[in-house]
């Protein structure tokens, strides 16, 4: 693929572009160009596999053996969204969800329907004036919602077909205290962590080949990571995803602190030695971190990575995020940058012997 290299002022600007682009699972194309450009800046080689995963390779700068150990970094660049299931009379579009969309968050959203060309649409709601008594007390069901793109049925059928994907349309905004908000921070924030890590590594020496992978179809079942890990056959796999940050109405037991540094996961899908290394390195180089217990393996690329081929030592680093799976996800640029530093510091410290030791549990 031809890369149209683009320069971004800073990581916030990269995240803005990544966040605002549409890339619902299965049709991640528009984000792919931006992500490839950004990764290409720090990598020796960038390729896209048959699935759409972007695999950027940064080779070891110190080579001690014929074949350097391989570390895979994975952040998914697909997003949740909608899919057109039927074009109704008068041109209204019925839809179903792709990934974990909460129907309660849909009325009033602006969307982009990726038809033969992109169409801006809105998800309307029945005005209070014409509702029957008590109707406002009920939750609106998905089946009752539709997208209005303003076209007649005949016109709509010319440009839109069943199966066309729909992404949310939302401007990236900056809040106070280095917080940013927008759609698809899950997991474009993770992608920016990888970019930051690669940038840090360009100023350090490392003995491992780094495969930075922007994966697809995570939101529908960690599918991109499944096949890309098979192809890369890494010795270590690190998934970078988002986790729930403190927000009103949610127990502190279920969240981590916004701006408190990235969350290092411990649980059955994390190799205990990798976990310990991340904690030790955070302390050593003074990078803020939090520890998160993740008892169930489902839901992140780490699980797909762990059970590939003969098994891969895996870790999970998460960015605190508020309002996950809405179009106003909030993350802290500080957490993103610190996570990138942590991963770079880890990669710079490991060697062949470290990788061998992971095999004795």
């Amino acid at each position, binding site marked *: 693929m031809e890369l149209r290299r683009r320069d971004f002022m800073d990581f916030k600007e990269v995240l803005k572009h990544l966040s605002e682009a549409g890339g619902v699972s299965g049709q991640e194309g528009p984000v792919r160009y931006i992500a490839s450009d950004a990764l290409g800046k720090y990598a020796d080689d960038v390729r896209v596999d*048959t*699935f759409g995963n972007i695999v950027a390779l940064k080779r070891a700068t110190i080579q001690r053996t014929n074949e350097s150990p391989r570390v895979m970094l994975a952040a998914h660049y697909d997003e949740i969204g909608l899919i057109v*299931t039927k074009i109704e009379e008068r041109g209204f579009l019925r839809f179903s969800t*792709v990934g974990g969309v909460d129907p309660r968050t849909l009325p009033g959203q602006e969307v982009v329907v990726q038809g033969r060309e992109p169409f801006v649409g809105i998800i309307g709601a029945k005005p209070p004036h014409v509702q029957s008594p008590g109707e406002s007390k009920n939750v609106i069901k998905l089946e009752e919602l539709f997208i209005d793109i303003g076209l007649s049925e005949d016109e709509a059928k010319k440009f839109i077909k*069943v*199966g066309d994907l729909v992404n949310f349309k939302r401007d990236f905004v900056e809040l106070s205290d280095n917080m940013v908000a927008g759609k698809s921070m899950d997991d474009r924030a993770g992608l920016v962590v990888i970019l930051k890590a690669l940038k840090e590594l360009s100023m350090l020496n490392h003995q491992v080949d780094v495969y930075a992978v922007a994966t697809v179809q995570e939101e529908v079942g960690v599918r991109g990571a*499944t*096949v*890309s890990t098979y*192809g890369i056959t890494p010795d270590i796999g690190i998934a970078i995803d988002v986790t729930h940050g403190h927000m009103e109405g949610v127990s502190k037991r279920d969240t981590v602190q916004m701006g408190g540094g990235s969350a290092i996961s411990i649980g059955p899908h994390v190799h205990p030695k990798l976990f310990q290394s991340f904690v030790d390195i955070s302390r050593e180089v003074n990078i803020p971190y939090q520890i998160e217990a993740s008892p169930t393996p489902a839901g992140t690329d780490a699980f797909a990575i762990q059970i590939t081929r003969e098994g891969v030592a895996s870790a999970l680093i998460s960015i605190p995020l508020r309002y996950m799976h809405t179009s106003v996800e909030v993350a802290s640029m500080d957490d993103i940058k610190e996570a990138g530093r942590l991963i770079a510091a880890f990669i710079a410290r490991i060697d062949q012997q470290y990788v061998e030791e992971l095999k004795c549990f």
Partner: protein
Amino acid sequence: MKEVLRKLSETYGPSGHEYRIREIIKEEISGFVDEIREDTMGNLIAVKRASRGKAEAKVMVAAHMDEIGLIVTHIDDNGFIRFSNIGGVSPFISIGQRVIFSNGAIGTVYHEPIEDISKLKLENMYIDIGAQDKESAMKIVKIGDAAGFHRPLEWVGERGIGKSMDNRAGCAVAVETIKKVGRTPNDVYFVFTSQEEVGLRGARTAAYGIAPDVGIAVDVTSTGDTPEAKTMAVKLGGGTAIKVRDASVICNPLVRERLIEIAEANGIPYQLEILERGGTDAGSIHLTREGIPSGVISVPCRYIHSPSEMIDYYDMVNSIELLTKALQSPFKMFAGS
């Protein structure tokens, strides 16, 4: 084709017990393929080599042979048989059904008295094979035996009603395609898979072994054309269905577009399908190894997982037509990618 479908539909073959279906298919396709083999999972793999020299691509076509069923878990003192499900079996649909075991023993399914029928679960149900007591029941059936629905296929006009249209309709499409397709530019591996209904299992190992460039599953899909049905733009009799996505797979856009182009170029009526629940063999195939671009050709079917699944003859004809034309075109764009 109607006769092939009748044989396939009426024959016993719950997941893991596909041997009779295998035999019927082997007999039907012998002479039309270059190789036939079985693997350890019970998949039947029939290969049609490319017309000359090097194949443009290796294409795997998958149609699952297995059907949903019941498995015996316990036989009580009075000879009543308790069971669990193989695949997605509804307790409500099972009431009063006749089921058949591999040895030909027939039973009927019923439930304990229950106040609120909406709370009916399979554990409150049993199979009655007419046995006097435990001892005589155990001469006929033992723990672990599997039963399937017992129903003849009926044609009502051009629509067939019967058990296991899911997925003997797909098997029949693949069988008829084998007979019709002739030499193609591709090496085509027709895989009649096992154990789809319990987690797309046969297709997973077959795809790993074959390592194709492209996968095409052939299966049934739901319709949205019955009274008060959930929104779905697929109609019985509306043509073959080209899958966009289901719970197991987002079909590769290049494969999907290729199928659409071929249908349009040949005037084959087709519908685009989004199945919100359920999956198919492409779900396993596309995640195999480094990822295999996959698509699905579906036969629209009403009342899936009941003993009265209904298909339309012309939807099947159109599915055969689409699969045949697709295989006759070179799939080079995917080879070695």
